[in-house]
């Protein structure tokens, strides 16, 4: 298949931001892609007073689109509150990357879901209510 990625996607793929793990993370989330078997893992450090995401790291096994989406998503939620971060949609991630090929939209869902998992992990650990997750394909 021809790989027609935007320059932004290529930039985030070649030099992904926020790669790695956080020791003693406040929230950890993992999402798998039923479509092609890819995995994203996300680590959050949250300020206990302000509920702002101070640090975020990811590890992703997947295509260029999955890696670029992970990288972009971490940039978009860093410095935001956990409420704001919850509202980040995969289409916003794709838009920030100047679009993804239609067949690759599902890769950005991986990022949205991993963030939701990590946020719910944080909420559970801090006695907050779990937010029900909606699974969708694109």
């Amino acid at each position, binding site marked *: 298949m021809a*790989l027609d990625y935007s320059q932004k996607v290529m930039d985030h793929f*070649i030099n992904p931001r926020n790669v790695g793990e956080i020791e003693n993370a406040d929230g950890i989330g993992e999402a798998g892609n039923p479509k092609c078997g890819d995995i994203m893992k996300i680590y959050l450090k949250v300020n206990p007073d302000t509920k702002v995401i101070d640090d975020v790291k990811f*590890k992703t*096994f997947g295509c260029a689109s999955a890696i670029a989406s992970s990288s972009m998503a971490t940039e978009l939620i860093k410095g935001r509150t956990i409420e704001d971060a919850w509202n980040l949609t995969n289409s916003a991630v794709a838009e920030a990357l100047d679009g993804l090929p239609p*067949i690759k939209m599902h890769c950005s869902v991986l990022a949205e879901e991993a963030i939701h998992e990590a946020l719910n992990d944080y909420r559970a650990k801090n006695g907050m209510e779990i937010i029900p997750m909606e699974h969708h394909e694109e």
Partner: protein
Amino acid sequence: MFVYMDHTATTPTSPEVLKAMMPYFSENFGNPSSVYSFSRKSRAAIEKARSQVAAALNADPSEIFFTGSGTEADNWALKGTLEKAMKAGKNHLITTSIEHHAILHTAEYLKKFHGVDVTYLPVDSEGFVSVKDVENAITDKTALVSVMFANNEVGTIEPVAEIGALCREKKIPFHTDAVQAAAHLDIDVKAMNIDMLSMSAHKMYGPKGVGALYLKKGLRPENFVHGGAQEKGRRASTENIAGIVGFGEAMEILKSRLDEDKKINSERRDRLIAGLLEKIPHAKLNGATGDKRLPNNINFSFIGVEGETLLLDLDAKGISASTGSACSSESLDPSHVLLALGLKHEMAHGSLRFTIGRLTTDEQIDYVLDVLPEIVARRRAMSPLWEDFLKTVKN
């Protein structure tokens, strides 16, 4: 550096071939079917090409039929044979699970629209079909056995001569897709008891859009392309003269340097394989080793990384390769060939194929050995799957 290591996808038309083709566009453009003397040159050119292709296979020129591609030759062999056999009550097709889609999707079509009963033979972990399995699958309804000569993804060379002998004994027509094999191996259709064989010019430094089906004398599958009386009434449509001329020329050149090419390709192949095994931890070679593997095929799985990312990283270094990863297929399914060899999804995901050829140099092999280990290590470092894998290895 531009490093083209995808010769299995296609090859450049060689300059000698192009030169031979040139007079058949604007000068000798006559329609071979016309009566006037001007078109004789076109007819003669086609017949020369037919002899060149036939000679390379130890076939008779009258047994070579030009088609528009390897895919068309495959379609014709399967559909033409089954359609005819069904009139005589035979509706069973035996093929394998590692065929090219040109065969697999044709078999699926025959099943769906004609009620053909298809047996897909399994392969072992190196990609070999067992002759015993072929024998056991044969019933009194079997109309055709179609087993590829060599696999395009992992390069495994099938026991074609044994299957040919078996089918001859059982009096069942035997077809083989030799689209890849014909570009690298000596093929003798008589000695190997092959009844039908598909080929394609663009895999052997000829032009795209021209192929051929070898049909043993006496075999008459139904026509596939209906229309005019070209190719002795067996394959309609005005001949692609320049393409056919190029095919004949490419085949003759290929044959003249086959042993030399085989030697140099196998040496480079084995050096690349050995180097990658040494430099990349937990690298797995897919397919067979030695002379049961196409001399130009190198196929690896690197657990923990995804193939499309490797292709893009390699592309950034000027290297063109290919993968069987789900992420780089239109269907998001991993390679059916790698799955048939028993690879887990994540191993198929991390597959990478290099296919070398006339554009390859020793320096390019060194270059790949230089850059790939770093690329794999870097992508593995950001992969949660690799992290999990390392835990299982340590324990």
